[in-house]
């Protein structure tokens, strides 16, 4: 079933490749000729990318990049690069694509192309199981726990009107406080909330208050490759395989 799905994806990316070739851009052809898609990532950000004990690269981004490579008919080749060197590596043509939980940045779009988002990270409101979840921060009453110094704390400072805001040392402390009924609400990152909700089930995830879109990144001048990646991604995101991949790395709650 998965093979049939990839054949469909391949058909879509083939069309994109034709469009790219028509523009006189050989970026996709070069990748296909080499038989490999060189993927840059900083494998220190689980569950998106990490180095497994066996030494191989694993995570949601690794699986996603593998799907994209398959759709292009090539093998992925991993380049584990420190976060701050990712864009430079792409510019220097050391890699063909970045897949490293990278938020789109409008100021970079002269140099790079961002795919459609494949995941929206951000801050979520969590609450006690069974309690009605507030739809916005201004409606929150009682005690709201946040990580001191974090984006969540800044949000609470700006938007909370009727709740007592309690600052804690870490997101883990925030989630433990909500789970232990020491706080009525908490603000934490979506991925952390999903992971903890999956294992403990001791709080529920409510409204997402901020949206940070993660995208695949290619060079702006590599239009044929960008189009092929986007076409592949569009098919992948609609597939059951992608839903399984998300559940595998982020849990069923995300």
């Amino acid at each position, binding site marked *: 079933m998965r093979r049939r799905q990839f054949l469909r994806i391949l058909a879509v990316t083939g069309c994109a490749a034709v469009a790219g070739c028509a523009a006189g851009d050989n970026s996709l052809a070069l990748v296909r000729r080499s038989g490999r898609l060189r993927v840059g990532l*900083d494998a*220190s*950000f689980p569950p998106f990318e990490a180095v497994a004990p066996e030494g191989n690269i694993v995570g949601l981004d690794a699986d996603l990049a593998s799907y994209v490579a398959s759709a292009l008919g090539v093998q992925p080749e991993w380049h584990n690069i*420190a*976060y*701050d060197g990712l864009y430079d590596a792409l510019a220097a043509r050391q890699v063909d694509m970045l897949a490293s939980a990278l938020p789109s*940045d409008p*100021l*970079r779009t002269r140099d790079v192309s961002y795919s459609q988002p494949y995941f929206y990270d951000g801050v979520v409101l969590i609450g006690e199981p069974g309690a009605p979840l507030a739809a916005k921060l201004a409606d929150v009453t009682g005690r709201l*726990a946040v*990580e*001191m*110094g*974090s*984006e969540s*704390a*800044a949000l609470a400072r700006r938007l909370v009107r009727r709740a007592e805001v*309690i*600052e*804690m*040392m*870490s997101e883990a*402390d925030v989630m433990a*406080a909500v789970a232990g009924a*020491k*706080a009525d609400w908490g603000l934490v990152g979506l991925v952390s909330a999903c992971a903890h909700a999956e294992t403990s089930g001791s709080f529920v995830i409510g409204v997402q208050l901020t949206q940070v879109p993660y995208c695949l990144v290619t060079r702006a001048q590599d239009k044929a490759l960008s189009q092929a990646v986007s076409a592949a991604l569009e098919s992948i995101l609609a597939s059951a395989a992608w839903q399984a991949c998300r559940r595998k790395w982020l849990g069923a709650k995300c």
Partner: protein
Amino acid sequence: MLLSAPPQQTVDLGPQQQVVSCNPKIGVHTRLTDEVEEWKIKLSLALAREMGATWVVEYFPWAYIEPEPGRFDWRHSDVILAHASRQGLSLVARLGYTPAWARPDGSTPSMLPQASWPAFAAFCAAFAARYRGVLSRVVIWNEPNLALEWGFRPPSPEQYSGLLSTCYPAIKASAPETIVLAGALAPMPSPLDDPTAMDDLTYLERLYAAGGGQYFDELAVHSYGWAYPADEPPDPGKVSFRRAELLRGIMETHGDGAKACLITEAGWNDHPRWTRAVSPSQRVLFTQQAYDLAYRSWPWCRAVAMWVLRFPWPQRSYQDYFAFLTSDFEPRPVYLAVKAYASNCVVAERPSQSL
């Protein structure tokens, strides 16, 4: 004709201000070098004062001020010094960045050939003379233990001692009360055979051995915390805030215990992905702890200027997470935490204990 006229002063200096802070050692490194608009310079310095900083460190590139030999353009530095003074701040000026006319073709501005030492010394002397009475201190060069900052040549404490011996008497001749700081060394344990960097402790030892100790009044220090708390015991093999104590020990060993140190860069970074970063809450606590530690336990430390108040525009890298203010002047949590600390000198307790 209008285009060639000198720029009008468009931003009023405002009334004379005074820093209100319980800890007189609080400082911050500003980044006004490339800040074009005067109102942003004024606002940056006002926000430094409002945070409780008594000290600011700023970089004044030689190449910007003396683009041709003997032709000085003081407009930008005049604006910064005037606003810093009006905000009641003590300004420490870091000097460096060689103009093209003073270095070989194809070299970078971190190259300062020996033949240009007298020209650089003359610039330092002119700078100190121009800002007598409002300038607190000058720092001669930056991180000379890095090849990157030393014209991509192997770092040489002996050569740097020669540079200090050229600049120091020139500054003292033109503005005797100006306090001259030896340039801060990059805190980094490095192997002896590393051509790109020299261990800062080794470098300082060799600087003294070369006779450089007689050509500075105080020592500038860079003291980043990386992922360690502010009170992490110093260790020659790692970078932590209290590494400054190791440099201090070398000064005392060489009979320089009467001279102060001034930390011109320090701090923690809370980038979510950078490997040397800490969490936002840790950054808040460690920063407060560092100011407090220097205040209560380091009588030899004049001030701690954390890197960095604000960048004129986003760096779009982990560097943005060293900033206390965003480029559009939004206070980051560490700014608010330092401001709160400066009002009562109480370091925040670990908040999870409060529930």
